[in-house]
């Protein structure tokens, strides 16, 4: 019995150190899987109402877009997920996304995180992971 609980503790410690090594602090700050789901649920209607970018998504299956965004935010924030979508360069290649459109989506995401009460420093940490994608996504 004692041995069992000891090994359970050891397993827990090992798991804790593993997850620490992966650093999921942003994921936790976003509210984990549930928080990310909620952020994306707020984000999608913001995108659809945003005159700057809504046309780019006019032909998109927004449910699919939402799932890919959830996966991506989860992966980038250090959460236990895997991005199953196509590489960013391929999904955006023909879209001729402008810098202003890239930033418009960033602003919508900031607004969505704000409405879900994500602290500003956590918001910035996620934006920090997304920002370098500008070089791949903005092709015009």
């Amino acid at each position, binding site marked *: 019995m004692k041995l069992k609980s000891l090994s359970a503790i050891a397993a827990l410690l090992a798991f804790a150190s593993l997850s620490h090594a992966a650093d999921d602090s942003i994921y936790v700050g976003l509210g984990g899987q549930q928080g990310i789901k909620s952020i994306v649920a707020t984000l999608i209607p913001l995108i659809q109402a945003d005159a700057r970018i809504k046309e780019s998504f006019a032909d998109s299956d927004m449910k699919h877009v939402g799932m890919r965004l959830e996966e991506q935010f989860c992966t980038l924030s250090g959460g236990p997920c895997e991005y199953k979508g196509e590489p960013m360069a391929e999904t955006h290649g023909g879209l001729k996304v*402008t*810098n*202003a459109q890239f*930033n*418009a989506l*960033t*602003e919508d995401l*900031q607004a969505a995180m704000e409405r879900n009460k994500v602290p*500003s*420093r956590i*918001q*910035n*940490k996620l*934006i*920090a*992971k997304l*920002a*370098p994608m*500008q*070089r791949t996504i903005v092709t*015009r």
Partner: protein
Amino acid sequence: MHYGIGHATRRIALFLAVTLGAGAALAQTSPDMGKLTATGGVIQVEGAGGGGLVPWALISGYGSRDSWGANAHYTRVTTQDYSLDTYGVAVGFADRVEVSLATQDFRGSLAPLNDLRIKQDIVGVKVKLVGDAVYDQDMLLPQIAVGAMAKRNKGIGGLGVLGVSKVTQLGARDENGVDYYVAATKILLDQSLLLNGTVRLTKANQMGLLGFGGDKGDSYQAKLEVSAAYLINRKLVAGVEYRMKPRNLGADNEKAYYDAFIAWFPTKHVSVTAAYAVLGDITIFNPVRQRGAYLSVQTGF
């Protein structure tokens, strides 16, 4: 040396003509307000995009690389015995080139300098060379820009009884001068920090309000200016700045400037910056450390 400054001014004029020509083509596209809130900085006390006292590598305005943006500003610094009003415009082209025009209006309020008035015009240009302060979050390289400020001191008013009407009579070598600077700005989103370091080659006494060069020195000196700010949220930034200055005039025991500021960006059209600024002694005739409130209002797109 007069030739040197005239030459530099001509080069800046030529650069301005080329920039404005390219800008006119760009201006046919409508402003896109495409940059993220606050990422154009505010306008510093000499008219360039930056913080309160220090020019940064950021390009003023919200025009993305496909567009342009512009700002008008009014700034007032009030210390115990002086006030400084600065107003002007700054235009950013393609998030690459910034052109700024500003006028500084310096006044005394303490007798016998209560009628003192010094005006100065400043034309600035800045070009972003490498890096992007916002997107390059995965590398250490900051956004780096070079700039120049051509300044023309328009003389001294209110000292007529002493027969003084020009800064050269206070020991300055020149009424005109050009500052050159290189600025490096890095936004560390992961830490919610903005860091800036600027090195300025200058001969300016009190930014040029007391002229350029003097009895104690008349060569360009490299002076360091630094800023650090915390991004409280996307509409609120608070920070500190420190700006070293040359000491060319025997009549002016010039000190470094420093300030603590908070900038608020309620929308992309408006920003308000409030600060507490310490400007040090201004002339040996009034050896009191000047400090006080700094307030800047800016509007644009």
